[in-house]
């Protein structure tokens, strides 16, 4: 009964992965078909290691993932605690809206909010007294990260909160009450009673968000296109450029395989570290 599903997943996901591995061992440039497709072993990987732009893109991706996922988990937990007890219909509506909106559309909305001297972002910065002169967000290498991180946090935090809210509702109310009558403050109640129940859900959210942040593409493509220059270019965007703009399929496949192996290693390491705890909780 699983044959159709497994078959189609295997033909379009697993088989191409092996193909990408094989392709990455060749020089294959669609702009120069006369070169053919000679076998070069690991030369493409050697080039990737020496490629400063690729290394920078890896660093960008890792830094972005670390910052945005941390923010999302902290804010998501706070939001879940705040929403716990609120009317659930409101919570669901609020959480699902940013999540259901296409990433491209969300990115365009945020680009609009950060674009130009009279943008909403500048208005807010002025109101908060952060800056008198209009800030040119998208033209500065460091500042251009702000709209990217803000947009990602806006789009995914409510969803993280929703996952945590489901877990939070498993916290026995009697336990919280007992802690309250024993004189535990709000923070102590959260840290000693709610948080242990929340841990597995947090670990799951962390894994999903981290893997998701690592493959960021749409948001950056629309918001900054990796710019100014290549200051905000993540690995997925650089690989896309190498493949479909430069048409260097051999080298691009080597970059793809590197990303895949990095993701795989990340997930594997994570499951080794946190998996046993998750399984124990399941039982």
């Amino acid at each position: 009964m699983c044959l159709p599903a497994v078959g189609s997943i295997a033909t379009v996901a697993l088989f191409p992965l092996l193909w990408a591995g094989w392709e990455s061992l060749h020089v294959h440039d669609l702009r120069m078909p006369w070169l053919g497709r000679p076998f070069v072993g690991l030369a493409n990987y050697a080039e990737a290691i020496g490629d400063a732009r690729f290394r920078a893109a890896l660093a960008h991706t890792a830094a972005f993932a670390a910052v945005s996922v941390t923010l999302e988990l902290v804010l998501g937990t706070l939001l879940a605690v705040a929403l716990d007890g609120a009317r659930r219909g409101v919570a669901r509506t609020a959480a699902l809206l940013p999540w259901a909106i296409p990433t491209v559309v969300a990115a365009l909305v945020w680009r609009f909010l950060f674009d130009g001297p009279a943008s909403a972002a500048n208005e807010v910065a002025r109101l908060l007294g952060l800056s008198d002169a209009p800030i040119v967000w998208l033209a500065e290498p460091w500042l251009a990260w702000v709209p990217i991180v803000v947009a990602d946090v806006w789009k995914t935090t409510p969803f993280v909160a929703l996952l945590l809210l489901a877990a939070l509702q498993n916290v026995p109310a009697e336990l919280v009450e007992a802690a309250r009558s024993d004189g535990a403050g709000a923070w102590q109640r959260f840290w000693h009673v709610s948080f242990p129940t929340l841990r597995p859900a947090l670990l799951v959210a962390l894994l999903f968000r981290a893997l998701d942040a690592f493959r960021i593409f749409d948001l950056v493509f629309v918001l900054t296109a990796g710019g100014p220059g290549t200051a905000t270019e993540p690995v997925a965007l650089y690989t896309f450029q190498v493949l479909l703009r430069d048409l260097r399929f051999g080298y691009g496949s080597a970059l793809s395989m590197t990303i895949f192996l990095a993701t795989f290693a990340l997930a594997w390491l994570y499951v080794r570290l946190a998996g046993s705890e998750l399984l124990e909780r399941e039982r």
Partner: protein
Amino acid sequence: MKRLATLAALAAIALPLWLAATASLSPEARLFEGPVWLPRELALEHYRALGSHGDFWLGLRNSLVVASLTTALCLPIGALCAYALARLRFPGRAVLLAATMATAMFPQIAIVSPLYLLLRALGLVHTYPGLVVPYVSFALPLTVWLLVGFLRQLPAEIEQAALLDGASRWRVWFEIVMPLAAPALAATGILTFLYCWNEFLFALSFTLGPERQTMPVAIALLRGQYQIPWGTILAAAVVSTAPVAALVLAFQRRITAGLAAGAVKG
């Protein structure tokens, strides 16, 4: 305190969408003066301008075709596999479930190159099947995962009674499980549709022009000659998002139940 925090969070979530919507309804000149917190006048010029943007409407049509086809293929295939995973005991079941999950978290960029070469060899670049085939395999893990979560919640007694009466597994699947799972299928179908509606990387990589580009690509590439036509872009954002957002909100109860059960981000 708690209520205040909730209100602040709701405002932070809604404000960007509100500002985008009000801007799409304001005259172009107004947009250079600052954010439109409260619209004083209503201008439909951007929506009229959008009407003559053929590429955007082509994108909507293509998205509709690709997302519907993918959902129509994913649901039966996924429901079959999910039933087996939820009810039958067979060797490799756990491995299969884990593998499905792993594919869902897979970075798409890792297989853009071989998929492109494959589609090129088959002459499928810039065609509907060229998008539907990759979409089916990437949306299937999500479909299967969600449906397994839903099907596990169905009582097994009716199926067992039917099996005792001599009905085959296939008949049980088709005549008992599927009707019972209709609401779950609807929710899963919406999520699968949404996945295809929002997908960007494959749509950008495997199409060459407006005739087959889907909505996200069409919107992302909507550019003016001299400056970004924000009014028109935001109007396009509203038009392409509002129907889907309404659909999601209408089914929010089932969707959140499924997502929380599967802990999957679409």
